[in-house]
């Protein structure tokens, strides 16, 4: 009987597990890359048409070829990498502090009811506050220093990160909480083994949003708070405007855009990997 049963089950299992093969890496990369490449070409084409139409003189609005040439020139220049390094150091440090603050605040607010009542809506409110509005205060508090920039970056990013965690905790599937309870997990153990992992997808999207805010705040900060002897991307942008260096300005803007997109894609890849591992990526229907 038992052998019989195990064979029946094995047969049924084999039938129910359809062979879902994932496509190769190259095919996946290509399927995602070609629409992007096409979009970039389309944007450049429109840009070129606008330039050719003579709407603005070339020294104000240069065409994509000129700008890409300038960009290529910069990529061969040591100063450029120093500027990128300074900016990225600020971005990473600011974001890391924001993650720490967001985690602590999010964890506290999601678990402690009075804190939730007191600060829940405040955190959401902070999220909608334009970061540039913080700068006057930041400059008063920290003078024209890197601390002023970091202050605003953290304030810009932390609320999103905290909110991501809070939402994740709130939307932990009740059935998993019950399952954890039945297993004998209580309080901190339940938090560690069930609630925190369950809130990971939401936390990740909070991180992604937090990064977007951090990056925006950082650029605003670098335009406003210029620190001597520290070339940053924002400062290069400001310099280019002062010198009416239109190709340099546009090239710098492309750099800002590309960095933003690349980091966002990293978060996107992490999110996709998570969804695939958890089986949240099943097609509907």
């Amino acid at each position: 009987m038992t052998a019989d049963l195990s064979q029946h089950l094995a047969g049924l299992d084999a039938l129910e597990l359809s062979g879902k093969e994932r496509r190769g890496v190259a095919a996946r990369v290509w399927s995602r890359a070609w629409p992007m490449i096409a979009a970039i070409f389309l944007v450049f084409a429109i840009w070129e048409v606008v330039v050719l139409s003579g709407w603005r003189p070339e020294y104000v609005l240069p065409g994509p070829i000129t700008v890409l040439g300038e960009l290529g020139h910069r990529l061969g220049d040591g100063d450029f990498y120093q500027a990128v390094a300074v900016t990225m150091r600020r971005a990473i440090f600011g974001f890391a502090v924001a993650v720490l603050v967001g985690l602590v605040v999010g964890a506290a607010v999601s678990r402690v009811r009075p804190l939730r009542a007191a600060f829940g809506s405040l955190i959401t409110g902070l999220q909608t506050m334009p970061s540039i509005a913080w700068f006057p205060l930041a400059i008063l508090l920290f003078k024209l220093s890197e601390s002023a920039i970091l202050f605003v970056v953290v304030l810009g990013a932390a609320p999103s990160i905290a909110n991501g965690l809070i939402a994740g905790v709130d939307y932990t599937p009740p059935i998993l909480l019950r399952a954890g309870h039945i297993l004998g997990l209580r309080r901190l153990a339940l938090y560690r083994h069930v609630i925190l992992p369950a809130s990971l997808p939401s936390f990740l999207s909070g991180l992604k949003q937090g990064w977007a805010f951090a990056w925006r705040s950082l650029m605003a900060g670098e335009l406003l708070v210029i620190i001597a002897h520290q070339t940053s991307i924002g400062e290069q942008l400001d310099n280019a405007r002062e010198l009416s260096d239109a190709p340099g300005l546009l090239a710098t803007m492309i750099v800002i855009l590309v960095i933003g997109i690349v980091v966002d894609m990293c978060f996107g890849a992490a999110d996709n990997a998570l969804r695939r591992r958890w089986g949240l990526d099943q097609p509907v229907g």
Partner: protein
Amino acid sequence: MTAPSRELRSSRVDGHEPAVRLDAVSKVYGRELLALDRVTLSVGKGEFACLLGASGCGKSTLLNLVAGLDRPTAGTIDTGGARIAMMFQEPALFPWLTVSSNIELALRVTGTARNTTKKERRARAAELLETVHLAGFGGKRPHELSGGMRQRVALARALAQRADVLLMDEPFGALDAMTRDLLHDELERIWRERGLTVLFVTHNVREAVRLGDRVVLLSSRPGTVIEDYAVTLPRPRRTDSGEVAGLASTITDRLRQEVLRHARPAQAVSAAGAVPAGADR
């Protein structure tokens, strides 16, 4: 229906020490929704008891109370310190863990001398997976398995808790008939081998008769025990056998009577007074 007769019916277990004993347990939700009304029920050690009822009979509430997920408003529940595991209609596996890790987590929380190190837990998890005929699937993620396989993992996880009492809340309700039949065999085998006490909630009458040593019928709104059928059909039974169908139709008739009571409140008294034909089997 008077309380003493209910008491008489529910203490049918002969020569068994009770593993779970409910004494006049009531549960009120909010201000006045009476989900359970003085339920007295005793399930013997090693007994397979099926709780059957229409919607709103508080079957799931009852299990949650026994599991300690919720507290009764009145009455007492005595499980004698038994280890209790529970399965739900959903497998409720943690999607961020592999199949093996899901079981290992249960082992870790239960924490016996036999599974103190990660390696020992992994080996023990593999054994448990073999018990539910899923050897070699430990490295998979829950979503990679079919519904029936996931429920077997959930069963393995429950076994990992070394539970004496297994509470099952419509565990096979979402599965197709074929898979359900096989899992009935599987569950019956494991229940026998391990001497588990099972409290199995279902709204499927044949499933209850197929599996149970007894079928406890609950009324709806509020839930009370209205019948307690002993099922003495020889095992293994088949869901589609004549004997199972016969007793199932008797119970279904009684269940319909109970449902009818809610359609026509005036008939409540006569319906409750009916004598069940299958009660002495």
